[in-house]
Each structure stands twice: as structure tokens, then as C-alpha cells.
């Protein structure tokens, strides 16, 4: 319907047939997405309502949990922003040394699953970890200097491994924003810092909010690292109800509260976004002249190096030490190649589907302004908030009961990944589309360009960096997914994270280390390829 509206506005090209087709396509798309995400949500809601009680939980402990969970996710997001924003700005807009290397290294932490990051940091900063042992031998006292366990450890680790969500979207947006706005501000006598504060940051707000939201929701739904770091949050409490007490009702209740919290977060983000309009892109994707840092070049590089040490070099170093020898890699590659292939095929399929569907949804939602668009992208976002274990169990019940031919195939895994990660694609593309001046399209339409031409010639080139970014994001998330995969994988069909998990549980650390490194390498691979090609201006 929105399609038809804008066509009528353009006036010249009615194209009734293709217009109706597009409309039907939009409706089918939205119905498909609804059928994908709503059933597990409704199932959760109905089990929660049926339970009607909190089981063994009291309201007080529930409030405590909510408080800890929100504080942890909030602080982790702030920490992630503190890492991501300076890094993105330095890499895209300045002449900092090694900025190209930093650019692709900065995304590597996303390829490190947070549970693996947490394990590495426990080895490094745990009570008997490398650093404490070293400090004790240095001073001769057995005092415990640093302790990664607990709330602050959780904040530290989650921020470290989620900041690339913000970095990716913000650096893509920085690239896509027209530097002439900033240059004009400079020429009008604004200081570099003033430009940053008054021009650049406001232009980046949609991307910062979208990236921050991804980091925040990740922290809300993370189970692996927080359980390792012994923090009591919603996800660990849900796990406890499910796997110790076998109390599905209490678990559903807790999950439902978590979903409601997510909903509240999403609504407030929406309110923040709608207050202002952010149309800034006028269509040049010209690269800005890098700002000369002068004598600040090396301090800037040191800052970037520090961030990358914490989030990449230290965890990878710990894993290398854990692996021990090169043969471990060749052994693992030979023995477990089939599992690596499983992971790549699954994550690739999920990423491609999520990119295509995400683009179509963001495109239709943008046109379906108002509550419909908001409801669709909101629904998709909530999928991200259902803890993996809970999602896995609800999909088992739903698919095994109603779609038994689908359940037990890898198709279930692809759908689970879409439910969890489609929002990364929709949000990213949405943010990019939000920055495109609608007059551009209208102008093209008035020049008798068909919607397809507008899409291809105008929108696609402008959102292309974002399309690469979201494909990579979803690929990375799907490569790392563990909780739902453990439950939903067909027997005999393991993925890389499942293998890392199994070998870790069985205390085969060398193997687990080698597999974790392979997981990181394969997860990062597409990102590396795309950035190289883009560096050479080939895509």
C-alpha cells in the first residue's frame, strides 16, 4: 500500500501490475517473518501465563535479577561505546598509522565468542591466572591482585567482545556520511573537536544507537560468558530453572520477563530515534580527506593498540598457548573438517538469507511508516532477546509437533539463526536507509525511473557498505551460536562451537584451543576478504 502511495506521488509511472506484485510480495514477506518469530514468542507468553506463578522465585529476587541484568548490560554497552567510537573515528577519519590493519582487526573480537573470551580471561586474570601468578612471584605475597569473576568481570568481557557491533555500523556510517558537511563546518571556523561534537556525532546517532542496542541486547541474552564468570543474571537463572529444577513454567516466566524488558528497551530506543530527523546523505560516497593528527599520530595508534590488545591479542595469545603445538591444528583440521564445513555452510546460508530478507524488510518498513513498520522491526528485534536455550526448547516443541518433517533437519538451525539474528540485518540496513534523503528517490522517480531502477541505481550503491557489514555480522553471529545449536542440531551434525564446547567440557584443552582459533579464523575470513577488496576499491 505504501508502495502504491509513493508511486502515485511520482505520478508518471503507475505500473499497476508490478505495483500489485510488489505489494503481494511485501505482504508475503511480512507474513513469513511473522510466522517465523511470533510462534516461539506466543508459546513463551502462553506458558508464562499458564504458570501464573514464579515457582520457587520471589518478587524480590526477580527484581534483584532484573536490576543486576540491566546494570550489567548497560555498563557493558557504555564500555563498548568507549572502545568503539574513538577507534571508528581514528580509523575512518584520521591519518593514524596502521589504520587499515586496525580497521579489520577491530572486528575480530566479534569472531571470538564471548564464552571463549571469558575462558581466555579466566586463564589470564583468574585468581590463579597468569597475571596473578606473575604478580605473586614478583612480590612474594599470595594476595589475589585481580579477579575476573563476578559482575565487573562480566561487564569487562562483554564490552570487549561486543564493541565491534558499534564499530562496524559507526565506521560504515562515517564512510557514507558526506564529509563536505564536516568540511564546511571546519571552514566556518569550528575546531576539530567542535566538528566532532556538533556535526559528526549527531550525524552518527542512528548508527551509534543501533550498534549500542545490538551490544545491549547481546549482553541481555548472553549466557555462556556470564555463567563462566559466575554472575547471576536472567539467562543463568533461566538455565538453572530449566536444567536443575526442570521447571519449564518458571523458566518461561523468567524468559517472558526478559522479553518484556527487551521490549521496553526497544520502545525507548525508538523514542530516542524519532525525536529528530537524520537525513544527511545527499548521495556522494566520496571519501573524506583524512584529518592530520600531527604529533598525536602515535599516541592515537597506542590507544588503538591497547584496545586491540585487550580484545584480540590477549585472548588469541591465551588460546595459542593453550593449543601448544602446530600439529594440533593439522590434527584437528584433518579430524574435524566435516564440522568446520557444517558451520560454514550453515552460517553462510543464514547470513545470505538474513541479508536479503533484512533488506526487503527494512525497505518495506521504511515505506510502511508508522505503527506497521515499527511493529515488524520490533518483532524481529525481540527474536534476538530470547535466550538461545529457551528458543531451542520452544522450537523443538513447536516444530517437532507441527512441522515434524522440518524438525531434525539443518533447516531448523537456519530458522533459529534467522530468529535470533535477523534483527542485526534489519537494524543495520534500516539505519543506513534512514540516512538517505528521500528527495533523491523522488527525483529519480519523477525522471521515470522504475522502482527497480531506483533500488538498483540509487539505494543499492548507497547501502552497499552496510549490506557487506550486515552479511558479515549475521555470518559471525551464526558461526558462534552455541546454546540453540546444542539443542537443535540433528544427531551427528556438530558445528564448530559445539566441538569447542565438547572438548572443553571433556578437559581436552589443546584441542578446544585449536578449534576455537579455527572458529575465530573462519568466522573472520569473509570480513577480511571484503575489507581487502574494499581497500582496493574493488567493491
Amino acid at each position, binding site marked *: 500500500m505504501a508502495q502504491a502511495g509513493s508511486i502515485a506521488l511520482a505520478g508518471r509511472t503507475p505500473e499497476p501490475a508490478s505495483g500489485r506484485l510488489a505489494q503481494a510480495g511485501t505482504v508475503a514477506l511480512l507474513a513469513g517473518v511473522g510466522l517465523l518469530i511470533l510462534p516461539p514468542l506466543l508459546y513463551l507468553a502462553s506458558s508464562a501465563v499458564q504458570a501464573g506463578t514464579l515457582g520457587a522465585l520471589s518478587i524480590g529476587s526477580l527484581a534483584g535479577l532484573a536490576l543486576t541484568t540491566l546494570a550489567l548490560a548497560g555498563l557493558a554497552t557504555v564500555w563498548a561505546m568507549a572502545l568503539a567510537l574513538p577507534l571508528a573515528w581514528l580509523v575512518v577519519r584520521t591519518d593514524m598509522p596502521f589504520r587499515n590493519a586496525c580497521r579489520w582487526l577491530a572486528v575480530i573480537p566479534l569472531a571470538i565468542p564471548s564464552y571463549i573470551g571469558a575462558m581466555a580471561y579466566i586463564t589470564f586474570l583468574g585468581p590463579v591466572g597468569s597475571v596473578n601468578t606473575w604478580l605473586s612471584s614478583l612480590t612474594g605475597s599470595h594476595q589475589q591482585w585481580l579477579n575476573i569473576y563476578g559482575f565487573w568481570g562480566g561487564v569487562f568481557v562483554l564490552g570487549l567482545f561486543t564493541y565491534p557491533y558499534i564499530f562496524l555500523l559507526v565506521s560504515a556510517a562515517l564512510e557514507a556520511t558526506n564529509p563536505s558537511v564536516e568540511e564546511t563546518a571546519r571552514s566556518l571556523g569550528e575546531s576539530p573537536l567542535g566538528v566532532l561534537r556538533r556535526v559528526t556525532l549527531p550525524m552518527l546517532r542512528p548508527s551509534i544507537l543501533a550498534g549500542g542496542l545490538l551490544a545491549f541486547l547481546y549482553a541481555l541474552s548472553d549466557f555462556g560468558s556470564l555463567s563462566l564468570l559466575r554472575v547471576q543474571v536472567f539467562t543463568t537463572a533461566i538455565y538453572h530453572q530449566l536444567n536443575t529444577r526442570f521447571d519449564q513454567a518458571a523458566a518461561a516466566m523468567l524468559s517472558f520477563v526478559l522479553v518484556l524488558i527487551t521490549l521496553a528497551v526497544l520502545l525507548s530506543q525508538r523514542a530516542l530515534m524519532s525525536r529528530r530527523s537524520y537525513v544527511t546523505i545527499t548521495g556522494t560516497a566520496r571519501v573524506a580527506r583524512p584529518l592530520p593528527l600531527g604529533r598525536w599520530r602515535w599516541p592515537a595508534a597506542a590507544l588503538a593498540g591497547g584496545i586491540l590488545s585487550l580484545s584480540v591479542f590477549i585472548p588469541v595469545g591465551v588460546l595459542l598457548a593453550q593449543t601448544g603445538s602446530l600439529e594440533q591444528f593439522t590434527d584437528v583440521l584433518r579430524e574435524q573438517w566435516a564440522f568446520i*564445513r557444517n558451520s560454514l555452510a550453515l552460517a553462510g546460508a543464514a547470513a545470505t538469507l538474513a541479508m536479503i530478507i533484512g533488506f526487503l524488510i527494512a525497505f518495506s518498513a521504511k515505506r510502511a511508516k508508522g505503527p506497521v513498520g515499527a511493529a515488524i522491526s520490533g518483532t524481529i528485534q525481540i527474536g534476538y532477546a530470547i535466550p538461545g536455550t529457551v528458543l531451542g526448547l520452544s522450537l523443538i*516443541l513447536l516444530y517437532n509437533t507441527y512441522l515434524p518433517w522440518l524438525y531434525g533437519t539443518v533447516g531448523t538451525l537456519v530458522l533459529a539463526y534467522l530468529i535470533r539474528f535477523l534483527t542485526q540485518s534489519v537494524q543495520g540496513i534500516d539505519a543506513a536507509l534512514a540516512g538517505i534523503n528521500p528527495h533523491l528517490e523522488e527525483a529519480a522517480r519523477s525522471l521515470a525511473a522504475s522502482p527497480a531502477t531506483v533500488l538498483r541505481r540509487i539505494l543499492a550503491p548507497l547501502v552497499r557498505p552496510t549490506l557487506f557489514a550486515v552479511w558479515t555480522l549475521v555470518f559471525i553471529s551464526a558461526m558462534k551460536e552455541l546454546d540453540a545449536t*546444542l539443542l537443535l542440531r540433528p544427531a551427528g551434525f556438530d558445528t564448530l562451537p559445539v566441538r569447542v564446547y565438547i572438548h572443553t567440557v571433556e578437559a581436552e584443552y589443546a584441542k578446544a584451543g585449536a578449534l576455537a582459533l579455527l572458529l575465530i579464523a573462519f568466522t573472520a575470513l569473509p570480513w577480511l576478504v571484503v575489507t581487502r577488496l574494499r581497500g582496493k576499491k574493488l567493491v
Partner: protein
Amino acid sequence: MQKLQALIYASLIAAALLGPTVAWPPLPAEAASDRLVIYSGRKEKAIKPVADAFAKQTGITVDLKTGKTSGLANEIRMEKAHPRGDLFISTESGIMEMLVKEGLLEPYQSAATKAVPDDFKSATGAWTGISGRARVILYNKNLVPEKDAPRSVLELADPKWKGKLAIAGTRERTSLAWATTLVAVKGEAFTKEYMARLEANGLKVLTDNTEVWQGVGRGEFAIGLTNSPNYYLAKKMGLPVGVIYPDQEAGGLGTPINPNAAAVIKGAGTPEAARKFIDFLLSPEGQRILVGQDYEIPLIPEADPGEVLPVKSIKRPAVGAQRLAELEEPTLKLLTAINPNW
């Protein structure tokens, strides 16, 4: 340049679209009479060699799904409408009793299961113990001289161990089984007071047993309560650990042995293969492979224990699995009231 660019685009798009299709791994075959699906909470290291030997001997394909016992049990419950697994192997019997209560297991008794002592199998034949792990006190030899190591779990409440103790929370079913056994033998009031004293003594409740034995091995804790195979694992890694099988003196409590158990899932596609596998697990060859892999205690008195203590030399409290299952919930309440980390 334009051409090269177009080529790169075409190949990127082709890779994104076709890559997953071409690389698509062969799907596991649909349920066939010669395919056995095992849901296993036991370590892959322990079960896979048995499964391989079984497949070789019988020609039956075995697909293994390894995970946490509790997670797989939840899966079996959710899959009730169309069961996907044929055989369930768990690390503890309480979960089996829960599944029995929900009618999810298919009883099976044979000559092989008869050889297993009664307290390691279901009274109705719903599940059978296949190997066991004793609850032990693990200590760090650098922090605790051998002669000072506690001989009874009750000694752990002594202030001299303050701040030096660790145990896995009830997320590890064997921890719950240990506490439940104590409730069964000594009563709820006694257990409550004992656990409160452990709490006052700074007992650290960790996520899993691996954290316990490694923490003790590295010296983070002087003493840990864990399962007997972990002692051998720690020793194999060269960690300075010693082990005590507690409360073995005449008139003492004894220490529980938790069975790993196997059961046929009700509605299994290939129940016959599942039954064959249980018999194979209990056969001398199956026991040799299973027990040899992971330092477990054979439950069949005649089986060769290898390196580990044989079952008959360990004094254990006589509490049936059904009784344990009944006491599980009150025990859990008692523990979490003392410390939510349990």
C-alpha cells in the same frame, strides 16, 4: 576496472548464494532400521569408542548427539510427540527417574542388565547403570599434607578449612545427588545445619566439576568435593592432587557412587538397536572400552576395574534411586535457601 569489478561482484554473489548449497554437508540419513540415534550426556571420549566398536560389530550406523545430561533430558521431554532419539545415556540416575515419572522411557531387562547391582538400576527396568563415579574429596598436596587430609565430609565443616573449600553447584547433577543422599541418610535437619556450617566456612559453589578439580589442581582451593574420575584426570595432567574416599571407616556414612545410566527412549525409531547397544555396553568388551576411557568404576562386580578402585571395595550408603528422586526437590530448596549459587 569495470569488468573486474563486475566479475568480483558476480563471484561474491555467487559465493554467497551457491556456497552454502555446494558446501552443504550430507544430511544424516532419515530414520532407518539400521540407524541408532544416541543422546549422550556422557563424555564423547567415553561413548564414541564404544559406539564405533558397536557399529563395526553390528553394521548399525550410530549418530551421537553429545550434550549436557539435563539439556538432553529437556530435549526428550519436548520431543515427546515424535521422539528423535533411540537411546539416552545420562550421567546420573535422578534424571532417569524423572523421565520414568513422565513416562518417557521404555523398560528393558536382559541377562546383561541382571548382572548390575540393584541399587544401580531402576526397579522396573526403565534404566540401567553402565558405570559409576564415587564422590571423593580431592585435595592439593602442596596445600594439605597427606596426613592432614580430611577423612570424612563432615570434617569439612571444621573452621580449619575455612575459605579453602569448593564444590560444583547442583547444575552438576552429581552434586545434587550427593546432598540428596545426605538428606536420605542423616535427615533434613542435620543436612541443613551441616550445609549452613559449610556456607559459614566459605564453601565456594562453582559452575561445574571441571572448575572444581582444576581449581584444586592449580591451588585456587585446597580441597574440593568432586567425582572419582576427576582425580585420575588431574593426576594425568600432572597436577599435585591427592584423593580421599571419605567416611569409609566401620560404622561410617560411606560415600555415594553415582551411576551413569542408559535407557531406551519410549517411541524410539529403532528400539531393537537401542537394546542391543545397552547389552553391548554391559558386555566385557563394552565395559573394557567404556571404563578404560575415563577412569570410571565398573558396576558389574566381575568386570575388570583396571586402574580404579573396584566397586566392592568402596563403602556406599544404601539409598535407592527412587528415594533419591523423591528427596531431590526438598534438597534443592534447602540448598538454595542457604546460598542461591547452589
